[in-house]
């Protein structure tokens, strides 16, 4: 079995001002783990920012007494980020409009989940001590 270790484990209040700090910390960790530079600067940065933003705004509804936990576990072949909020969760498989379709291109919203799925190798959602969005990227 491949060895894995926790590379990051932080808990932040439901406040969007905390997103950037966690994302930068995760990006630094990725560089230390020698992931390809574009995976650190683009894939992890943007997908993680989206997941944390969803957790704060939609999951926790920006409630001051609720928190978001961000955890990264590293193994030989991948890095797995868990973003955990205290909300009811959402259906990842639900059909959503394609934000790249010409009729939706000028819509302000609807690109978050699309970007997570395009920038990560796998995106899952499940309940485990909260609502978990799991982002997996291969090294």
């Amino acid at each position, binding site marked *: 079995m491949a060895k894995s270790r926790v590379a990051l484990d932080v808990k932040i209040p439901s406040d*969007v001002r905390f997103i950037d700090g966690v994302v930068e910390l995760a990006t630094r960790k990725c560089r230390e783990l020698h992931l390809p530079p574009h995976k650190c600067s683009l894939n992890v940065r943007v997908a993680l920012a989206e997941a944390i933003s969803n957790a704060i705004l939609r999951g926790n509804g920006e409630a001051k007494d609720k928190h978001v936990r961000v955890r990264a576990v590293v193994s030989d072949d991948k890095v797995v980020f868990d973003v955990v909020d205290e909300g009811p969760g959402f259906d990842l498989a639900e059909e959503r409009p394609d934000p790249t379709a010409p009729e939706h291109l000028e819509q302000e919203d609807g690109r978050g989940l699309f970007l997570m799925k395009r920038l990560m190798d796998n995106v899952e959602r499940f309940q485990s001590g909260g609502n978990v969005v799991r982002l997996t990227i291969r090294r």
Partner: protein
Amino acid sequence: MSFAISKQGEVVVVDVEGQLIVGNRQELKQKVLDELEKGEKKFLIDFSQTGYIDSSGLGVLVSLSKKIREQGGELRLANLNDDLQTLFELTKLDTLFQISDTRERALESF
């Protein structure tokens, strides 16, 4: 994270320093809308000092572009790094905006 606004000829230039994300997108939106209300029509957003943009940042650019066009103006973009260029291509927003390699080229294009 901040937005510096300057005027070059008839063009309002906005430099995005840091990130354009959910935490600061409203600030950018308000600054540009204030200029639009003053009667400005030509806008250029320069991303040469920008780390990354999230989906809400992209959404604000789309929304501003629409509002500016409705007032008879235009919003153009410049200096996307490779990551940002990829982001615009993934979302196909590269088809919605006129994007220049440099600020100078963008200013000349108006």
